[in-house]
């Protein structure tokens, strides 16, 4: 019983840490996807040149997607922002804006490299990706990711030891039985098996409450918050099938840790 409660509590912590980790990963990933290189072509570039530039960018290995945005499109978009802008742009006969490309990269880490490469092309005015700030954001994301993963791993290890120790206590009361089994000629494996199965079942029973909490808790939280935190700046992962994955992971962790823990605990009594 003690080991079930112990498993339950630590698995709840593991579940919370996993939910947080997964969401942090999700958020950072979706934010990373927003990161692009904005490329402006020189004013005098002809349409043909624009096409070659687009193809050249598209052929770069790190580039995922290139979207062309002409100066007319820019103009229309800017004019819709405010009336002052509309009036100003209307007043100008020539469109002062530049043709541009919005370039998406496969790996955010390659943003700088891609931007640099694009700058070397002919007919490019500038290629920017928010230097400085992007690097900072990425490094912060990396730290957060690492931290949450470390927390999950640490919790799993702590669970394993806690379960192992609680099972050790229960096995202590059965050590005479183990001793007799050994003296009578049971093989170590056949002595160990029942305990390992017991640990397995303990782990599964112990993971039931955390699984229930995780499924209902997360769905409830998701609905209460409407799918995002702080005015939809941070989007949450949709509950289905996310909670199912978490539950499966909890079940696996619980049963494996239970098995490992009890086999570790019996081992002590199987020596001479």
């Amino acid at each position, binding site marked *: 019983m003690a080991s079930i409660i112990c498993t339950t509590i630590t698995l709840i912590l593991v579940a919370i840490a996993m939910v947080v980790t997964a969401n942090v990963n999700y958020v950072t990933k979706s934010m990373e996807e927003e990161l692009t290189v904005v490329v402006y072509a020189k004013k005098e570039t002809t349409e043909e040149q624009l096409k070659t530039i687009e193809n050249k960018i598209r052929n770069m290995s790190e580039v995922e997607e290139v979207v062309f945005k002409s100066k007319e499109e820019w103009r229309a978009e800017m004019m819709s922002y405010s009336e002052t802008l509309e009036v100003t742009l209307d007043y100008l006969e020539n469109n002062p804006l530049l043709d541009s490309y919005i370039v998406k990269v496969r790996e955010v880490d390659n943003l700088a490299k891609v931007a640099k490469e694009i700058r070397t092309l002919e007919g490019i005015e500038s290629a920017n990706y928010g230097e400085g700030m992007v690097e900072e954001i990425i490094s912060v994301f990396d730290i957060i990711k690492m931290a949450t993963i470390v927390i999950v791993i640490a919790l799993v290890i702590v669970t394993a030891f806690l379960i192992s120790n609680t099972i050790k206590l229960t096995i202590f009361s059965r050590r*005479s039985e183990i001793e007799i089994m*050994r003296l*009578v000629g*049971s*093989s170590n494996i*056949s002595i160990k098996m029942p305990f390992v199965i017991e640990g397995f079942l303990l782990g599964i029973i112990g993971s039931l409450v955390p699984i229930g909490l995780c499924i209902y808790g997360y769905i409830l939280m998701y609905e209460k918050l409407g799918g995002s935190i702080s005015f939809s700046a941070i989007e949450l992962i949709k509950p289905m099938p996310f909670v199912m994955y978490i539950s499966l992971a909890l079940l696996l962790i619980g049963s494996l840790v239970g098995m490992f823990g009890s086999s570790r605990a019996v081992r002590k009594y*199987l020596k001479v």
Partner: protein
Amino acid sequence: MKFIQIKNCYKVYKNGVTAIADLTLDINKGEFVFVIGSSGSGKSTLIKMLYREEKPTKGIVEIGGINVGKLRNRTVFRLRRKLGIVFQDFKLLPKLTVYENVAFALECLGLRGKEIKPRVVEALEHVGLKEKLRCFPSELSGGEQQRVCIARAIVNDPKLLICDEPTGNLDPKTSKEIMDVLDDINKKLGTTIIMATHDKEIVNRMKKRVIVLDNGILAQDVVKGSYKASESI
């Protein structure tokens, strides 16, 4: 025919105590041997080395061709299945009945219910406890519990029965009954028996081979010995 061979065997415990020193001993098949000596003479250590509860520090302990000292933890059960062990404190499982306790030894060998039943009944017949099949150990007297322990030890037809002071907790009359049972097993089944004991009376009466240990050294080995012969030590 040599069944047990002990050659230049030493046992030194981690705390530095030498329990057995340079022991060389042969025991033949079907023999009944008493191991005697004062407390701390090393007889318990010798017995424990025979069923590989302790490993010899140096030298060879061989039983029926198995080098006991070289057995790994994982394979000790192969030796134990060929032995029967009787303890001073019985070591019965309190939650199992007499029948279940004896059957336990066979279940450990992987036998099925049908094969187990006749053998358990036969073993309990040998020790004269057939009527108490369904009793729990707590309902039995000390002598009866020891007989259950003997039944459990012989149920797998061992070639060797190791007894560690089996009469240590019993009164003289009950001790005699137990010794009769063991003698009977030795004669009828031809089982080799090694018994460590303190009990003068038993040793003197049975007139068996007596091995006397003193501070871990073989002091005497007499074919039809008695306690008196060793009183000089």
